[in-house]
């Protein structure tokens, strides 16, 4: 087929899209992609989508996901992608391939010569495939952005170092400790030990969901590094189940002091720096 014929076909298909737009829009609005929307919104999105696709076909960019016409339907695609991000993935996500069936059915009902019907089929299939690629691209980039932002937030969240008393620091560890988060926590703890001239550092693992050999190894390393700097480390918040798991795994924290609760660890820390807490007799009397 020559380029000239290709252009003729494209013109014919574009004309078909223009003449039958209300039929096509009605058929599309009934597909699962749009039924979740309010009818008015669905009609508007279908119309925009159709105009964009016609433009793509007229300019011959039906195999190029970055074509001009697709740029105009990007807002619609972004809204489709945003809906899929909220819902469960897999079969429930909007899939623009369901638009192909009604469109091709209407095209074949046009009562045209067979070779034009076949060529037109090809053009329409191509443009919808390209549309699908564009939608996937948008979904993927949106997902990647979300993941990056959340990872940064997690790292920030994971490492508050709290000063409990002159010379006593606590670092509450929360969630799952992977190697990056563990390293950030260790480094900020050691830096704060120097900054506050802390004699005791409490590693509180109340919020840690699971302690495996890797996490235990990490806690141990942090404790030893703190000792090398001249500070003592206490590990607190070991829940009974975690204590049992650690014993079963054969984890030995060696000479690192451990306490059940942060309060116990704090009492021990006060003892190390030579302070005691006692009732105020005046207040009691």
């Amino acid at each position, binding site marked *: 087929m020559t380029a000239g014929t290709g252009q003729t076909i494209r013109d014919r298909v574009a004309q078909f899209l223009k003449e039958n737009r209300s039929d096509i829009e009605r058929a599309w609005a009934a597909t699962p992609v749009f039924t979740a929307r309010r009818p008015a919104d669905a009609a508007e999105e279908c119309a925009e989508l159709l105009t964009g696709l016609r433009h793509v076909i007229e300019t011959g960019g039906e195999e190029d996901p970055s074509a001009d016409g697709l740029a105009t339907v990007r807002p619609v695609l972004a809204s489709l992608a945003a809906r899929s991000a909220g819902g469960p993935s897999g079969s429930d996500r909007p899939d623009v391939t369901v638009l192909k069936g009604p469109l091709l059915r209407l095209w074949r009902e046009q009562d045209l010569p067979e070779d034009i019907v076949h060529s037109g089929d090809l053009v329409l299939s191509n443009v919808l495939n390209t549309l699908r690629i564009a939608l996937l691209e948008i979904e993927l980039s949106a997902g990647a952005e979300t993941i990056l932002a959340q990872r940064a937030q997690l790292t920030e969240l994971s490492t508050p170092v709290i000063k409990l008393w002159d*010379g006593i620091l606590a670092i509450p560890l929360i969630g799952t400790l992977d190697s990056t988060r563990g390293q950030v926590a260790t480094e900020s703890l050691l830096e704060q*030990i120097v900054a506050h001239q802390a*004699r005791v550092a409490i590693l509180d693992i109340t919020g840690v969901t699971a302690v495996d050999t890797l996490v235990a190894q990490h806690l141990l390393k942090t404790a030893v590094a703190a000792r*090398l700097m001249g500070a003592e480390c206490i590990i607190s918040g070991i829940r009974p189940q975690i204590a049992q798991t650690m014993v079963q795994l054969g984890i030995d924290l060696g000479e690192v002091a451990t306490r059940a609760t942060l309060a116990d660890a704090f009492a021990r820390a006060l003892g190390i720096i030579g302070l005691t807490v006692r009732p105020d007799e005046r207040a009691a009397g």
Partner: protein
Amino acid sequence: MSATSVVELQDVLLVTIQGELTDEDAMALQEELTTNVARSSARGVLIDVSGLDLVDSFLARTLHDIAGASALLAAETVVVGMRPEVAITLVELGLTLPGLGTALTVADGLDRLNGSARRR
């Protein structure tokens, strides 16, 4: 370039290490210190490593040896002022310096040697 100085503070030897320490320097330091401890019958040795940004396995072993030799001469060894990055590196290398006393600052180290209340 490295500069080490040994200062006698009553019955404690204060050793300050500045800059990088080569293996020869480390060995010389070990010999000088042991001689000094024996001569002055010092009760304690404080090694200030806050000026060191690199501690290798040889230096770690030397510190361990110094502590061992000093203990034989009835002196306690305390390493003070180790930087966080140095501490992390040593731990990653598996050099945990067992049996070596540590303290945050020289003052803390002196407190520790004097066995006084560990309060600043």
